[in-house]
């Protein structure tokens, strides 16, 4: 399992940050991601592997409509 913003989802083989955000349908343009507390640059999302049991924060940067 992987925890994303507190939501538990099934971990998969070859699960990159990008894949994870797709599964969550996190399409917002301004997201800051940390995996187990380590910030992952947007450029790394397609290649950065999310290990099983990770705690991922996908911080959506918006405080106002």
């Amino acid at each position, binding site marked *: 399992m992987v925890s994303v*913003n*507190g939501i538990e989802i099934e971990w998969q083989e070859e699960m990159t940050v990008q894949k994870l955000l797709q599964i969550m*349908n*996190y*399409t*917002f*343009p*301004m997201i*800051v991601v940390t995996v187990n507390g380590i*910030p992952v640059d947007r450029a790394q999302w397609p290649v950065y592997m999310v290990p099983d049991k990770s705690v991922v*924060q*996908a*911080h*959506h*940067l*918006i*405080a*106002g*409509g």
Partner: protein
Amino acid sequence: MGITTEELRASRKVLAEFDYEPAEIEKGYSGKSLYINLTDLTIKPKDITEQMKEIFIGGKGFGLWYLWNAVKPSTKWSDPENEIVISSGPIGGITQYPGSGKSLVVTLSPLTNSVMDSNVGGYFGPYLKFSGWDALEVQGKADQDVVVFIDGDRGKITIEKMELDPGASHLVSEQLTDMFAESEKDKKNISIVSTGSGADNTLIGLLNFSFYDLRRKAPRLKQAGRGGIGTVFREKNLAALVVRYSSLSGRSNNPADPSTIAKTGVKLAREINKFDDEQFRMRQIGTANLMTPMNDYDLLPVNNFKFGSHEDAVKISSDVLRSKFTQNMPDGCWVGCALSCCKAVDNFELKTGPFKGDKVIVDGPEYETAAGLGSNCGIFDPDHIIEANFYCDTYGIDTISTGTITAFAMECYENGVINKEITGGLELSFGSADAAMELIHQMGQGRGFGKIAGLGVRRMKHFFVDEYGADEAFLEDIGMENKGLEYSQYQAKESLAQQGGYAMTNKGPQHDEAWLIFMDMVNKQLPTFEKKAEALHYFPMFRTWFGLMGLCKLPWNDIIPESNKDADRPELIPEHVQNYVDIFNAVTGKQIDKDEMIRQSERVYNFQRVFNLRLGFGTREHDAAPYRALGPVTEEEYESRAERYDNQLRDDVGINPEGMSTADKVKKMREYRESRYEQLIDVVYKRRGWTTNGIPTIGHLCELGIDFPEVIETVKNKL
């Protein structure tokens, strides 16, 4: 187009005039405000006192203070003593920092019968100030339609009558710009405030503030939309306010420290250039950039806020709307706004209504308009949204209220509360674009069912119950209004904090106080009541500040600086908050910090709460939300997201949903959500320094320095 400019000019008759020497602007203030009484045609200056600057700052603060002094607790919106006050603020009118040209409008609202404020672009507020007036108060009621002209170049104010048809705001703006400008070049120096026939015929009238678009050679319109301010304007028989000021320069606001302003502005403009295309694309799409993500996150209102997404939303996605904008250059509602989020559709050929066949410029659509007139009514046709947007603006009716009203009427129609006989033949089912458009024309023209719809959701509910025996409880659940104002267009069911952000507001459910949905629902940054309450204290106070200054909220967090990735509290956008502190100090020569910034807002925010109390509102019962805003009212809503709700029953409520009927699940969910909302109110009130009934304590008012005798008296009577 009826009357020509020459004929209009020939028809002018001056009813009253006033000559003045425009005051020099000193550190963001002229030190004078202009008072006009339309009953006896008084025009007179007033001094802005140091105490006003210290406590009320400007903009909405000045508006509230003047209105407080103008009205009695018994005053109704339609009484001549009600005022419309327009003021920008000390920062308003600077051209170096993006988003610094807003005007704040304050009045007693026909929808809420209490205080309303609205923040609007266009050039009127800055030009008013540079013409020598920090604020304009309009009181009284003219006995015929009048135009007020403030000529800041000549130092002359006139109240005039003329052969002007005030029915269509786009024409009024064009005609008056043509007539008052002394040359083609002078048109950019004119700004008009006007509305349309919808403001005469409904309680949701808006005000259009113009700015002249040099490329399109036409005035563009920005809206002070919420709360029926345009209805008050027409009640006073105001046809238009006009200001002319031709000496705008980077020094017009005469700040204490121009170089800090320039430096800070350049820094933000660079950020915008560098990051906007990869962030929110405000320059390309404007606020309509939110259409796609709101649908993706189940936050786009669909069918009167029943749902948060729809498969057809792709037809009105951000990119579809973008493809409709005929825009190839940045376009701002005030000089120097590098974020330039204004969008327009040129040469749009109207298919309906009094201007059918005309090719017009349509401002927008903004997100709220597209969601309100589109998805929330089950309509996924971009051309319908653009046409409805045009007509709402030119009739002078608020697109947000229009959307929520139409959606409510549609749900009533689908549930048999109203029928074709009552609607005069309109088949108001969700998705009926033709019926929705016809309803706009009826509201705009004061015909048929439009006369009922134009009263707003609260009065429609009462009318349907009284006249047609509708189920009151059901209508209370689905009628999306609080305090009498229609909800703006976000689905808040899954964010308790946002439910408070909507209903625990001073003026009603507009998201300009707080938009906490992502922080709360997606990021899970507000897991406890205390954290939600902290956010419901900080953000409304912080965002109130824009309205004191003449600022636009968008350059605060619709562009994110590089430093934000290392910020402790990225949601605050600390670098931009510091920019605002620096700019305020650089304009006024004062020395505030970010804590004092919040205190400045807190004074005005609490004053507005007391003002509501004084008018008979402002207590806990007025912060109640319709259940549609808190959770699923119907079994259909529950079933549409059954897995989510079942999980919540199991995990959050501690009930096993297996074997339960949907009706029982809806009931249990409701008990849980309503009790959570009540708990939230308790914690928020405490954080805000209010009693459990929502009344600011005397101690808190003293601490804030707004313990004027009449304020304390008002509160004492309610405690």
